Protein backbone atom coordinates (compact mmCIF):
# COMPACT_ATOMS: atom_id res chain seq x y z
CA UNK A 1 0.00 0.00 0.00
CA UNK A 2 1.27 3.47 -0.94
CA UNK A 3 1.15 5.58 2.22
CA UNK A 4 2.09 8.84 0.44
CA UNK A 5 -1.50 10.12 -0.14
CA UNK A 6 -2.36 9.55 3.55
CA UNK A 7 0.86 11.19 4.76
CA UNK A 8 0.20 14.10 2.40
CA UNK A 9 -3.34 14.45 3.81
CA UNK A 10 -1.97 14.51 7.39
CA UNK A 11 0.73 17.02 6.42
CA UNK A 12 -1.86 19.26 4.79
CA UNK A 13 -4.17 18.99 7.83
CA UNK A 14 -1.42 19.79 10.36
CA UNK A 15 -0.12 22.79 8.42
CA UNK A 16 -3.70 24.05 7.98
CA UNK A 17 -4.30 23.79 11.75
CA UNK A 18 -1.13 25.72 12.56
CA UNK A 19 -1.92 28.48 10.05
CA UNK A 20 -5.53 28.64 11.19
CA UNK A 21 -4.58 28.90 14.87
CA UNK A 22 -2.51 31.95 13.92
CA UNK A 23 -5.23 33.56 11.80
CA UNK A 24 -8.37 32.12 13.38
CA UNK A 25 -7.80 32.99 17.05
CA UNK A 26 -7.46 36.78 16.53
CA UNK A 27 -10.31 36.69 14.01
CA UNK A 28 -12.55 34.76 16.43
CA UNK A 29 -11.65 37.29 19.15
CA UNK A 30 -12.67 40.15 16.86
CA UNK A 31 -15.96 38.45 15.95
CA UNK A 32 -16.72 37.63 19.60
CA UNK A 33 -15.93 40.98 21.19
CA UNK A 34 -15.95 43.70 18.55
CA UNK A 35 -18.84 46.14 18.54
CA UNK A 36 -18.08 47.12 14.94
CA UNK A 37 -20.86 46.45 12.44
CA UNK A 38 -18.25 45.08 10.03
CA UNK A 39 -18.17 41.91 12.10
CA UNK A 40 -21.54 40.82 10.63
CA UNK A 41 -20.13 41.09 7.12
CA UNK A 42 -16.95 39.32 8.16
CA UNK A 43 -18.86 36.55 9.94
CA UNK A 44 -20.98 35.89 6.86
CA UNK A 45 -17.84 35.83 4.72
CA UNK A 46 -16.04 33.41 7.05
CA UNK A 47 -19.08 31.11 7.13
CA UNK A 48 -19.40 30.89 3.34
CA UNK A 49 -17.40 27.65 2.94
CA UNK A 50 -20.02 25.85 5.07
CA UNK A 51 -22.86 26.58 2.65
CA UNK A 52 -21.07 26.91 -0.71
CA UNK A 53 -20.75 23.81 -2.89
CA UNK A 54 -17.02 22.89 -2.81
CA UNK A 55 -16.90 23.11 -6.60
CA UNK A 56 -18.07 26.74 -6.52
CA UNK A 57 -15.43 27.64 -3.94
CA UNK A 58 -12.84 25.61 -5.86
CA UNK A 59 -13.77 27.32 -9.12
CA UNK A 60 -13.33 30.83 -7.74
CA UNK A 61 -10.13 29.91 -5.90
CA UNK A 62 -8.82 28.40 -9.14
CA UNK A 63 -9.53 31.67 -10.92
CA UNK A 64 -7.96 33.74 -8.13
CA UNK A 65 -4.87 31.49 -7.90
CA UNK A 66 -4.26 31.54 -11.67
CA UNK A 67 -0.92 33.17 -12.60
CA UNK A 68 -2.88 35.22 -15.14
CA UNK A 69 -4.91 36.87 -12.38
CA UNK A 70 -3.74 39.64 -10.04
CA UNK A 71 -3.56 37.60 -6.79
CA UNK A 72 -2.07 34.48 -8.38
CA UNK A 73 0.50 36.45 -10.30
CA UNK A 74 1.44 38.51 -7.20
CA UNK A 75 2.00 35.35 -5.13
CA UNK A 76 3.90 33.72 -7.98
CA UNK A 77 6.19 36.75 -8.36
CA UNK A 78 6.64 37.23 -4.59
CA UNK A 79 7.37 33.68 -3.38
CA UNK A 80 8.13 32.09 -6.70
CA UNK A 81 5.50 29.35 -6.33
CA UNK A 82 2.36 28.89 -8.40
CA UNK A 83 -0.72 28.34 -6.24
CA UNK A 84 -2.40 26.20 -8.87
CA UNK A 85 -1.57 22.48 -8.82
CA UNK A 86 0.92 22.85 -5.98
CA UNK A 87 1.00 21.84 -2.32
CA UNK A 88 1.30 25.50 -1.24
CA UNK A 89 -1.88 26.25 -3.22
CA UNK A 90 -3.60 23.35 -1.45
CA UNK A 91 -2.60 24.80 1.95
CA UNK A 92 -3.98 28.25 1.06
CA UNK A 93 -7.24 26.73 -0.25
CA UNK A 94 -7.45 24.44 2.74
CA UNK A 95 -7.04 27.37 5.15
CA UNK A 96 -9.89 29.20 3.38
CA UNK A 97 -12.38 26.32 3.26
CA UNK A 98 -11.61 25.19 6.82
CA UNK A 99 -11.80 28.70 8.29
CA UNK A 100 -15.35 28.39 9.71
CA UNK A 101 -14.55 25.05 11.34
CA UNK A 102 -11.83 26.72 13.42
CA UNK A 103 -13.54 30.08 13.90
CA UNK A 104 -16.99 28.92 15.05
CA UNK A 105 -16.03 26.84 18.14
CA UNK A 106 -13.33 29.31 19.19
CA UNK A 107 -15.66 32.29 18.78
CA UNK A 108 -18.43 30.48 20.71
CA UNK A 109 -15.91 29.69 23.45
CA UNK A 110 -14.75 33.31 23.66
CA UNK A 111 -18.36 34.54 23.79
CA UNK A 112 -19.22 32.19 26.65
CA UNK A 113 -16.18 33.21 28.74
CA UNK A 114 -17.29 34.13 32.24
CA UNK A 115 -17.74 37.92 32.02
CA UNK A 116 -17.16 38.31 35.77
CA UNK A 117 -13.63 36.92 35.39
CA UNK A 118 -12.90 39.41 32.61
CA UNK A 119 -14.36 42.24 34.73
CA UNK A 120 -12.29 41.13 37.73
CA UNK A 121 -9.12 41.14 35.62
CA UNK A 122 -9.96 44.70 34.52
CA UNK A 123 -10.40 45.99 38.06
CA UNK A 124 -7.14 44.26 38.99
CA UNK A 125 -5.55 46.55 36.40
CA UNK A 126 -4.70 43.90 33.81
CA UNK A 127 -4.25 45.05 30.20
CA UNK A 128 -6.47 43.65 27.44
CA UNK A 129 -3.45 41.72 26.18
CA UNK A 130 -2.89 40.08 29.60
CA UNK A 131 -6.61 39.37 29.94
CA UNK A 132 -6.57 37.59 26.58
CA UNK A 133 -3.48 35.45 27.28
CA UNK A 134 -3.99 34.79 31.00
CA UNK A 135 -7.78 34.65 31.36
CA UNK A 136 -9.66 34.17 28.07
CA UNK A 137 -7.31 31.75 26.32
CA UNK A 138 -6.68 29.38 29.29
CA UNK A 139 -10.44 29.15 29.81
CA UNK A 140 -10.97 28.19 26.17
CA UNK A 141 -8.45 25.40 25.64
CA UNK A 142 -11.33 23.00 24.90
CA UNK A 143 -12.69 25.35 22.22
CA UNK A 144 -9.25 25.60 20.62
CA UNK A 145 -8.80 21.83 20.65
CA UNK A 146 -12.31 21.35 19.24
CA UNK A 147 -11.54 23.87 16.45
CA UNK A 148 -8.25 22.09 15.68
CA UNK A 149 -9.92 18.66 15.62
CA UNK A 150 -12.75 19.80 13.34
CA UNK A 151 -10.26 21.52 11.03
CA UNK A 152 -8.20 18.35 10.90
CA UNK A 153 -11.24 16.21 10.09
CA UNK A 154 -12.56 18.60 7.48
CA UNK A 155 -9.19 19.00 5.74
CA UNK A 156 -8.72 15.25 5.70
CA UNK A 157 -12.10 14.69 4.06
CA UNK A 158 -12.24 17.58 1.57
CA UNK A 159 -12.44 16.49 -2.06
CA UNK A 160 -14.03 19.06 -4.41
CA UNK A 161 -11.81 22.05 -3.67
CA UNK A 162 -8.69 19.88 -3.48
CA UNK A 163 -9.41 18.32 -6.88
CA UNK A 164 -10.00 21.68 -8.54
CA UNK A 165 -6.99 23.46 -7.04
CA UNK A 166 -4.48 20.64 -6.79
CA UNK A 167 -5.52 18.04 -9.33
CA UNK A 168 -3.82 14.73 -8.67
CA UNK A 169 -0.06 15.08 -8.78
CA UNK A 170 1.59 12.18 -6.90
CA UNK A 171 3.62 13.25 -3.84
CA UNK A 172 2.50 16.87 -4.39
CA UNK A 173 -1.29 17.19 -4.40
CA UNK A 174 -2.63 13.62 -4.53
CA UNK A 175 -4.13 13.37 -1.03
CA UNK A 176 -6.06 10.37 0.33
CA UNK A 177 -9.52 11.53 -0.79
CA UNK A 178 -8.25 11.99 -4.36
CA UNK A 179 -6.52 8.59 -4.29
CA UNK A 180 -9.79 6.91 -3.23
CA UNK A 181 -11.65 8.61 -6.08
CA UNK A 182 -9.07 7.47 -8.64
CA UNK A 183 -9.04 3.87 -7.38
CA UNK A 184 -12.85 3.73 -7.56
CA UNK A 185 -12.82 5.21 -11.04
CA UNK A 186 -10.45 2.46 -12.19
CA UNK A 187 -12.49 -0.16 -10.30
CA UNK A 188 -9.67 -0.98 -7.84
CA UNK A 189 -12.07 -1.28 -4.92
CA UNK A 190 -9.67 -3.13 -2.62
CA UNK A 191 -7.12 -0.30 -2.83
CA UNK A 192 -9.88 2.30 -2.37
CA UNK A 193 -11.19 0.39 0.63
CA UNK A 194 -7.79 0.48 2.39
CA UNK A 195 -7.67 4.27 2.33
CA UNK A 196 -11.39 4.64 2.99
CA UNK A 197 -11.40 2.44 6.11
CA UNK A 198 -8.46 4.38 7.58
CA UNK A 199 -10.22 7.73 6.95
CA UNK A 200 -13.45 6.29 8.37
CA UNK A 201 -11.69 5.13 11.55
CA UNK A 202 -9.87 8.45 11.97
CA UNK A 203 -13.05 10.47 11.42
CA UNK A 204 -14.92 8.38 14.01
CA UNK A 205 -12.14 8.77 16.58
CA UNK A 206 -12.10 12.51 15.90
CA UNK A 207 -15.84 12.88 16.46
CA UNK A 208 -15.57 10.75 19.61
CA UNK A 209 -12.81 13.10 20.88
CA UNK A 210 -15.04 16.14 20.29
CA UNK A 211 -17.88 14.45 22.23
CA UNK A 212 -15.47 13.61 25.04
CA UNK A 213 -14.21 17.20 25.15
CA UNK A 214 -17.72 18.67 25.34
CA UNK A 215 -18.57 16.15 28.10
CA UNK A 216 -15.48 17.24 30.07
CA UNK A 217 -16.52 20.87 29.68
CA UNK A 218 -20.05 20.17 30.90
CA UNK A 219 -18.69 18.30 33.94
CA UNK A 220 -16.36 21.19 34.74
CA UNK A 221 -19.21 23.68 34.61
CA UNK A 222 -21.31 21.53 36.99
CA UNK A 223 -18.48 21.14 39.55
Amino acid at each position, binding site marked *: MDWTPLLLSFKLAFITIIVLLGIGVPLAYFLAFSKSKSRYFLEALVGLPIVLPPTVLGFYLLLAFSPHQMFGSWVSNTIGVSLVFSFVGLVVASVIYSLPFMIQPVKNGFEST*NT*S*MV*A*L*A*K*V*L*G*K*SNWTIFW*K*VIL*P*NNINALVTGAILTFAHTLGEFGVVLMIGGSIPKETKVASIAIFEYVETLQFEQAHRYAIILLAISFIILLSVQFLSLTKKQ*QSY*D
Partner: protein
Amino acid sequence: MIEIELKKTRKSSKHHFQLDVNLITAPQKIIGLTGASGSGKSTFFKILSGLVRPDSGTIKVNNHLWCNIDHKKYKKPQQRSCSYLFQEATMFTHLTLAQNIQFANTKLTISEVQHWLSKLDLFELRNQYPNALSGGQQKRAALIMTLVNPTDVILLDEPFSALDEEAQQLVVKLIKTHHQQHQPTIFIASHNIEILKQLCHVTTTITHGKLDIPLTL
Protein backbone atom coordinates in the same frame (compact mmCIF):
# COMPACT_ATOMS: atom_id res chain seq x y z
CA MET B 1 -11.60 64.39 48.82
CA ILE B 2 -14.07 62.06 47.14
CA GLU B 3 -16.63 63.86 44.96
CA ILE B 4 -19.25 61.80 43.20
CA GLU B 5 -22.31 63.05 41.37
CA LEU B 6 -23.86 60.66 38.90
CA LYS B 7 -27.04 59.35 37.34
CA LYS B 8 -27.76 56.06 35.64
CA THR B 9 -31.06 54.86 34.26
CA ARG B 10 -31.80 51.25 33.44
CA LYS B 11 -34.94 50.34 31.60
CA SER B 12 -36.15 46.81 31.18
CA SER B 13 -39.51 45.25 30.34
CA LYS B 14 -40.08 44.53 34.03
CA HIS B 15 -38.94 47.68 35.79
CA HIS B 16 -37.45 51.11 35.45
CA PHE B 17 -34.51 51.88 37.70
CA GLN B 18 -32.67 55.11 38.28
CA LEU B 19 -29.49 55.53 40.30
CA ASP B 20 -28.95 59.04 41.58
CA VAL B 21 -25.85 59.58 43.73
CA ASN B 22 -24.55 62.78 45.31
CA LEU B 23 -21.61 62.16 47.59
CA ILE B 24 -18.86 64.41 48.88
CA THR B 25 -16.65 63.06 51.61
CA ALA B 26 -13.20 63.40 53.08
CA PRO B 27 -10.90 60.61 51.92
CA GLN B 28 -9.73 57.65 53.99
CA LYS B 29 -13.15 56.97 55.50
CA ILE B 30 -14.94 53.65 55.74
CA ILE B 31 -18.47 54.11 54.45
CA GLY B 32 -21.17 51.49 54.92
CA LEU B 33 -24.02 51.16 52.43
CA THR B 34 -27.21 49.34 53.18
CA GLY B 35 -30.40 49.02 51.22
CA ALA B 36 -32.78 46.43 49.89
CA SER B 37 -31.69 44.06 47.13
CA GLY B 38 -31.93 45.85 43.82
CA SER B 39 -31.65 49.29 45.40
CA GLY B 40 -28.54 50.10 43.35
CA LYS B 41 -25.57 49.28 45.61
CA SER B 42 -23.86 46.99 43.10
CA THR B 43 -24.63 49.33 40.17
CA PHE B 44 -23.04 52.17 42.14
CA PHE B 45 -19.93 50.05 42.70
CA LYS B 46 -19.77 49.05 39.04
CA ILE B 47 -19.92 52.69 37.98
CA LEU B 48 -17.31 53.71 40.55
CA SER B 49 -14.93 50.96 39.39
CA GLY B 50 -15.42 51.90 35.72
CA LEU B 51 -17.13 48.67 34.68
CA VAL B 52 -20.39 50.51 33.91
CA ARG B 53 -20.59 53.98 32.39
CA PRO B 54 -23.02 56.45 34.01
CA ASP B 55 -25.45 58.45 31.87
CA SER B 56 -24.22 61.69 33.37
CA GLY B 57 -22.08 63.04 36.18
CA THR B 58 -18.59 63.34 37.57
CA ILE B 59 -16.34 61.17 39.74
CA LYS B 60 -13.29 62.78 41.30
CA VAL B 61 -11.04 60.95 43.75
CA ASN B 62 -8.16 62.68 45.55
CA ASN B 63 -7.94 65.31 42.80
CA HIS B 64 -7.90 62.66 40.05
CA LEU B 65 -10.77 62.94 37.60
CA TRP B 66 -12.06 59.42 36.91
CA CYS B 67 -15.10 60.41 34.95
CA ASN B 68 -16.79 63.49 33.56
CA ILE B 69 -19.42 62.52 31.04
CA ASP B 70 -20.12 66.12 29.91
CA HIS B 71 -16.44 66.61 29.03
CA LYS B 72 -16.09 63.09 27.62
CA LYS B 73 -13.44 62.15 30.19
CA TYR B 74 -13.59 58.52 31.20
CA LYS B 75 -10.93 56.40 32.83
CA LYS B 76 -11.08 52.66 32.21
CA PRO B 77 -11.15 50.32 35.26
CA GLN B 78 -7.44 49.62 34.67
CA GLN B 79 -6.65 53.34 34.99
CA ARG B 80 -8.47 53.87 38.31
CA SER B 81 -6.85 53.28 41.67
CA CYS B 82 -9.77 51.13 42.76
CA SER B 83 -10.15 47.53 43.98
CA TYR B 84 -13.47 45.76 43.93
CA LEU B 85 -14.75 42.63 45.71
CA PHE B 86 -17.69 41.41 43.62
CA GLN B 87 -20.83 40.22 45.37
CA GLU B 88 -20.41 36.75 43.85
CA ALA B 89 -16.74 36.57 45.00
CA THR B 90 -15.38 35.93 41.52
CA MET B 91 -12.07 34.13 41.15
CA PHE B 92 -10.15 32.76 38.17
CA THR B 93 -11.34 29.17 37.89
CA HIS B 94 -8.27 27.95 35.96
CA LEU B 95 -5.90 29.07 38.71
CA THR B 96 -5.32 27.67 42.19
CA LEU B 97 -5.99 29.80 45.25
CA ALA B 98 -2.33 30.80 45.58
CA GLN B 99 -2.08 31.47 41.82
CA ASN B 100 -5.17 33.70 42.03
CA ILE B 101 -3.52 35.84 44.72
CA GLN B 102 -0.27 35.91 42.76
CA PHE B 103 -2.16 36.96 39.60
CA ALA B 104 -3.92 39.74 41.53
CA ASN B 105 -0.52 41.19 42.46
CA THR B 106 2.32 39.72 40.43
CA LYS B 107 4.90 41.49 42.61
CA LEU B 108 4.09 39.32 45.63
CA THR B 109 6.63 36.68 46.58
CA ILE B 110 5.52 33.14 47.42
CA SER B 111 6.03 33.77 51.15
CA GLU B 112 3.95 36.98 50.94
CA VAL B 113 1.13 35.06 49.22
CA GLN B 114 1.30 32.45 51.98
CA HIS B 115 1.24 35.19 54.60
CA TRP B 116 -1.90 36.71 53.07
CA LEU B 117 -3.60 33.30 52.92
CA SER B 118 -2.75 32.63 56.57
CA LYS B 119 -4.44 35.88 57.61
CA LEU B 120 -7.82 34.48 56.63
CA ASP B 121 -7.10 30.87 57.54
CA LEU B 122 -6.75 29.68 53.93
CA PHE B 123 -3.14 28.51 53.86
CA GLU B 124 -4.03 24.80 53.81
CA LEU B 125 -6.19 25.38 50.72
CA ARG B 126 -3.51 27.21 48.72
CA ASN B 127 -3.30 24.54 46.00
CA GLN B 128 -7.07 24.09 45.61
CA TYR B 129 -9.00 25.42 42.61
CA PRO B 130 -11.93 27.79 43.33
CA ASN B 131 -14.53 25.16 42.34
CA ALA B 132 -13.32 23.00 45.24
CA LEU B 133 -13.86 25.79 47.81
CA SER B 134 -16.99 26.58 49.78
CA GLY B 135 -18.80 29.90 49.29
CA GLY B 136 -17.25 31.34 52.46
CA GLN B 137 -13.75 30.25 51.49
CA GLN B 138 -14.18 31.81 48.03
CA LYS B 139 -15.40 35.02 49.63
CA ARG B 140 -12.33 35.23 51.89
CA ALA B 141 -9.98 34.41 49.01
CA ALA B 142 -11.60 37.03 46.77
CA LEU B 143 -11.24 39.57 49.59
CA ILE B 144 -7.50 38.89 49.75
CA MET B 145 -7.30 39.42 45.97
CA THR B 146 -9.00 42.78 46.49
CA LEU B 147 -6.63 43.89 49.23
CA VAL B 148 -3.26 42.75 47.86
CA ASN B 149 -3.11 45.82 45.60
CA PRO B 150 -3.15 48.96 47.76
CA THR B 151 -5.51 51.44 46.03
CA ASP B 152 -7.14 54.79 46.86
CA VAL B 153 -10.65 53.30 46.84
CA ILE B 154 -11.80 49.83 47.85
CA LEU B 155 -15.30 48.57 47.07
CA LEU B 156 -16.52 45.59 49.07
CA ASP B 157 -19.86 44.15 47.95
CA GLU B 158 -21.30 41.88 50.64
CA PRO B 159 -17.93 40.86 52.14
CA PHE B 160 -19.55 39.14 55.15
CA SER B 161 -22.16 37.03 53.38
CA ALA B 162 -21.61 33.25 53.42
CA LEU B 163 -19.25 33.64 56.41
CA ASP B 164 -19.70 32.22 59.91
CA GLU B 165 -19.23 34.54 62.89
CA GLU B 166 -15.60 33.58 63.44
CA ALA B 167 -14.72 34.21 59.77
CA GLN B 168 -16.66 37.50 59.84
CA GLN B 169 -14.48 38.73 62.72
CA LEU B 170 -11.31 37.68 60.88
CA VAL B 171 -12.51 39.70 57.87
CA VAL B 172 -13.38 42.73 60.03
CA LYS B 173 -9.91 42.59 61.61
CA LEU B 174 -8.23 42.33 58.20
CA ILE B 175 -10.19 45.29 56.79
CA LYS B 176 -9.38 47.41 59.87
CA THR B 177 -5.68 46.56 59.73
CA HIS B 178 -5.55 47.25 56.00
CA HIS B 179 -7.28 50.60 56.50
CA GLN B 180 -4.85 51.61 59.25
CA GLN B 181 -1.84 50.68 57.13
CA HIS B 182 -2.88 52.10 53.73
CA GLN B 183 -5.61 54.64 54.56
CA PRO B 184 -7.85 54.01 51.54
CA THR B 185 -11.47 55.10 51.23
CA ILE B 186 -13.53 51.94 51.67
CA PHE B 187 -17.16 51.46 50.64
CA ILE B 188 -18.83 48.40 52.11
CA ALA B 189 -22.25 47.26 50.89
CA SER B 190 -23.81 44.85 53.34
CA HIS B 191 -27.07 43.81 54.96
CA ASN B 192 -25.21 43.18 58.23
CA ILE B 193 -25.91 46.44 60.07
CA GLU B 194 -24.14 45.32 63.27
CA ILE B 195 -20.82 44.76 61.55
CA LEU B 196 -21.15 47.99 59.54
CA LYS B 197 -21.64 49.93 62.80
CA GLN B 198 -18.56 48.23 64.24
CA LEU B 199 -16.39 48.98 61.19
CA CYS B 200 -17.58 52.12 59.42
CA HIS B 201 -17.20 55.84 60.13
CA VAL B 202 -20.68 56.31 58.69
CA THR B 203 -23.41 54.06 57.38
CA THR B 204 -26.04 55.22 54.95
CA THR B 205 -28.88 53.70 53.00
CA ILE B 206 -29.54 53.61 49.28
CA THR B 207 -33.27 53.77 48.71
CA HIS B 208 -34.59 53.14 45.21
CA GLY B 209 -31.26 54.19 43.74
CA LYS B 210 -31.03 57.44 45.69
CA LEU B 211 -27.88 58.12 47.73
CA ASP B 212 -27.14 61.48 49.29
CA ILE B 213 -24.18 62.01 51.62
CA PRO B 214 -23.36 65.58 52.73
CA LEU B 215 -20.00 67.31 52.80
CA THR B 216 -19.91 67.24 56.59
CA LEU B 217 -18.73 63.63 56.66
